[in-house]
């Protein structure tokens, strides 16, 4: 089996690889897969909450991108286009697993309002010192899973993957103000929920 090499990843820029792949260079497309597969998996897993679905999303998104490569105009970055495909695939998976079948990026935006801060205790010591790595991972997963899909997708693209507001808007087919409003509420809701675990307990919590 072919070993995946990381060192070659940055030699070619994205556009060169895309142009070569368009001309039928499979190795160039393989480089694009290696460059972005981990990001796509992470995004898909955050949306679907299901490892099997996330693996399928990675496969289907790259395959769809490959088959439609000729339609990719290069007005946006290839990665932006790819994430857009992957998000749609992931939402479709989520819909299939849900009884109501109405999952969308707009879900709960108007009705959901758990964003007003109620918990105003500071966090100290640092949460990373309070919990072990795996316990902390479980808390973070459980907490972000509680957000509506539209909120957690914006948060993941913007704050975890480090995309700009404009890129996130393009990836999700949303306006910039819509991304900002979801991001604010996602951040505040996560903060509120994490406070339950991380808030400092003043007085009375000293170990005997």
């Amino acid at each position, binding site marked *: *089996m072919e070993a995946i090499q990381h060192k070659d990843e940055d030699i070619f820029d994205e556009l060169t690889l895309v142009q070569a792949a368009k001309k039928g260079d499979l190795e160039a*497309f393989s480089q694009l897969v290696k460059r972005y597969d981990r990001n796509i998996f*992470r995004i898909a897993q955050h949306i679907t909450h299901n490892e099997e679905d996330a693996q399928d999303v*990675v*496969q289907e998104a790259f395959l769809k991108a*490959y088959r439609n490569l000729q339609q990719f105009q290069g007005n946006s970055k290839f990665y932006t286009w790819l994430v857009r495909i992957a998000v749609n695939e992931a939402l479709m998976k989520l819909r299939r697993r849900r009884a109501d079948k109405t999952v969308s990026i707009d879900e709960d935006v108007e009705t959901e309002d758990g964003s007003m*801060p109620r918990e105003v205790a500071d966090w100290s010591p640092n949460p990373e010192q309070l919990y072990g790595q795996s316990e902390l991972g479980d808390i973070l997963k459980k907490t*972000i899973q509680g957000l509506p899909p539209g909120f957690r997708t914006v948060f993941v693209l913007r704050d975890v993957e480090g995309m700009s507001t404009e890129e996130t808007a393009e990836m999700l087919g949303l306006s910039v103000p819509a991304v*900002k409003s979801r991001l604010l509420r996602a951040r505040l809701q996560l903060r509120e929920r994490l406070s339950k675990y991380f808030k400092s307990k003043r007085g009375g919590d000293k170990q005997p």
Partner: protein
Amino acid sequence: MKCAEFLKELTDYLDDAISPGVKRELEEHLQWCHDCEVVLNTTQKTIEIYRNNKLYELPETLRVRIHSIIMTKCKGSRQSKKTST
């Protein structure tokens, strides 16, 4: 400035996408409002903690397997395109 107005600007403030005038107002508010200061600090920590602890890493063995499936299917779709033309 009221707390509600502070909250409305919080995301832009954290992303440093705010005009100097509004920034000054927010910082004045922070000087006397302890609750907003805590909300700001803990929101910042929320972002950092998710950014620093990336959840759901794709295991390398699985990654190699998925990569091989994708490339096999791409090859297949290219060949079927060739034969159909």
